[in-house]
């Protein structure tokens, strides 16, 4: 099958959905002639014109609000935050408006918009590198999607655009360059279905976003040492496929959770708690470890940043720790 990058996968999903449904449009900063800060929307302005690929002033609250408002009127906006860190500026529109409209209005209205945003450390300092999915994960009414591979990016973005709820679509900057197989044919991926990226018997590595690639590499290393790790990618955080997680952990009896976000209050804790509160608790042979970014802002210096990001080595070490 052909291989494309994460960047191309997102671009294709946007293009195809815009072709399919004329109500789909893009809104964000420098997504037009510039093609987006990461080149993700390249070529879409030429194809769809300024009306449907709308460059905005630098007004994140305004962008998110425009997405909410337009979605109430039957449009299908796909808004971009240039960096996920900027949801802090838009968070009233996300958390107090978009997420709650359907509920607090008793079901009278719904807000089917998508907010796309690149997360993750990539040499840009504390304000351009965060993985803030935990903030969105906590808010009822939002769906939260955090794919890893090009295949998942494309299939899940298409599903996100067709979903009738606000969907937070979290990309990883380093995922834009990753290559993977993506069929030419149309496909979508349902929400709430974790993907076992590698089957294994000895323990379950639950990894999100770009950490999936690291977990897979770690698993290969571990295999050489005779340890057979299963790598589970939840793909969507809300809804979360606990069934698959519980099944896997019940099978292996051991788990580590890997994410790039800070440990404290990261989604890893919640996943651990949900495992502990499930039937898998009774199969647990060891504590569940979290391998995550530390509880520090993301530092700039390459030396420090690479210490921040959970590495293959740290994953391996975490696994060996619980296997002792």
């Amino acid at each position, binding site marked *: 099958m052909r291989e494309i990058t994460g960047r191309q996968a997102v671009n294709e999903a946007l293009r195809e959905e815009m072709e399919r449904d004329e109500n789909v449009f893009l809104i964000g900063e420098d997504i037009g002639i510039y093609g987006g800060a990461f080149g993700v929307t390249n070529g879409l302005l030429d194809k769809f014109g300024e009306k449907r690929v709308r460059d905005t002033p630098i007004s994140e609250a305004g962008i998110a609000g425009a997405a909410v408002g337009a979605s109430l*009127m039957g*449009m299908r906006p796909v808004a971009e935050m240039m960096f996920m860190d900027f949801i802090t500026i838009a968070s*009233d529109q996300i958390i107090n408006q978009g997420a709650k409209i359907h509920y607090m*209005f008793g079901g009278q209205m719904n807000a089917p918009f998508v907010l796309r945003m690149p997360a993750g450390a990539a040499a840009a300092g504390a304000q351009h590198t965060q993985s803030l999915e935990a903030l969105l994960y906590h808010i009822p009414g939002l769906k939260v999607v955090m794919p890893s591979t090009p295949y998942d990016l494309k299939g899940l973005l298409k599903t996100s655009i067709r979903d009738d709820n606000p969907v937070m679509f979290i990309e990883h900057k380093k995922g834009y360059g990753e290559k993977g197989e993506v069929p030419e044919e149309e496909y979508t991926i349902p929400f709430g279905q974790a993907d076992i990226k590698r089957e294994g018997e000895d323990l379950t590595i639950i990894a999100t976003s770009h950490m999936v690639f690291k977990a897979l590499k770690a698993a290969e290393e571990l295999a050489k040492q005779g340890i057979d790790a299963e790598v589970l990618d939840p793909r969507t955080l*809300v809804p979360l496929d606990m069934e698959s997680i519980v099944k896997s952990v019940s099978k292996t009896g051991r788990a580590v959770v890997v994410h790039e976000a800070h440990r404290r209050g990261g989604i890893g804790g919640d996943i651990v708690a949900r495992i502990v509160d499930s039937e898998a608790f009774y199969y647990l042979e060891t504590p569940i470890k979290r391998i995550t970014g530390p509880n520090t802002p993301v530092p700039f210096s390459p030396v420090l940043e690479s210490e921040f990001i959970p590495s293959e080595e740290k994953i391996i070490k975490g696994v060996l720790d619980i296997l002792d």
Partner: protein
Amino acid sequence: MELSEEKLLKMYQDMIEIREFERKVDYFISHGDITGTTHLYIGEEAIAVGAINAAEEKDYISSTHRGHGHSIAKGVNIKEMMAELFGKTTGSCKGKGGSLHIVDSDTNNLGANGIVGGGIPIAVGAALAAKMQENGEVILCFFSDGAMNQGAFHEAVNMASVWDLPVVFICENNQYGMSTSVEKAFNIQDLSARAKAYNIPGVKIDGNKIMEVYEVVQEAVERARQDGGPSLIVAETYRWKGHSKSDAKVYRTKEEEKAWKERDPIAQFEEELKAQGILDEQKIEDIREEIDEKVEAAVKFAQESPFPDKEDIYDDVYVDGEVEL
């Protein structure tokens, strides 16, 4: 401005209905039948009624925490609104929203908002949709003075201006945001001067004169509909009641209150209509009676309606699908 007698009477009735509805709410809030707090529109009726009647039915509104008046002027079923305030399952939001979140999609009412200024970007988004859909719809975006110091106001109005969106920004300048006077929160006297920052028409009007509101809003709506872009209208008015339930109003004087009450928008309109021979005492009495009955019926409906079931808490989080437990 030639308006039919029928329309003028409807506008008059709407104003009375708002005031009487709010009086009832005030009563039930202070007696604890309505829980929480609420923000009453009494004294500001000319703005919602004048503005909304200047637009067409197909046009949309976005409202505020002080939103009962907008909803009534736009045609909400007051039974459902009252039931909502009582937290009943028959309410506009099935009891989930309360006063801060009245909404009515049937009448193109995009809803109240508990966040000061929070509805402004949403209104602009709705206007963007209207423009893209080329359906000639206009959005009336209501807010009060306090909201003009929110960043959201600034970002949204700029976007509306840059993209020439069909939205009319209507500031109900009731002189205060809670206890904070316009003098304290602004360094400008005429809030419509803010329009210059976005190069859109800005005008300050007497918000207690319904026909002035009507005329100015109608012009702005028509301009917006013809792709002429947004405008900012600042309508000067006053809220007669405290900000919300627990307000002792220590920040303003009785004299000030009195002076504004003498400029009662309803009394002024009543005088006009009387002078035009459209109203007389008998007619006023009939109208008041009719509205009393209507409001009483709403109260009765609200009181007699059942509360939601506990389990309803899990509904409507998502359009489809379940809530994770």
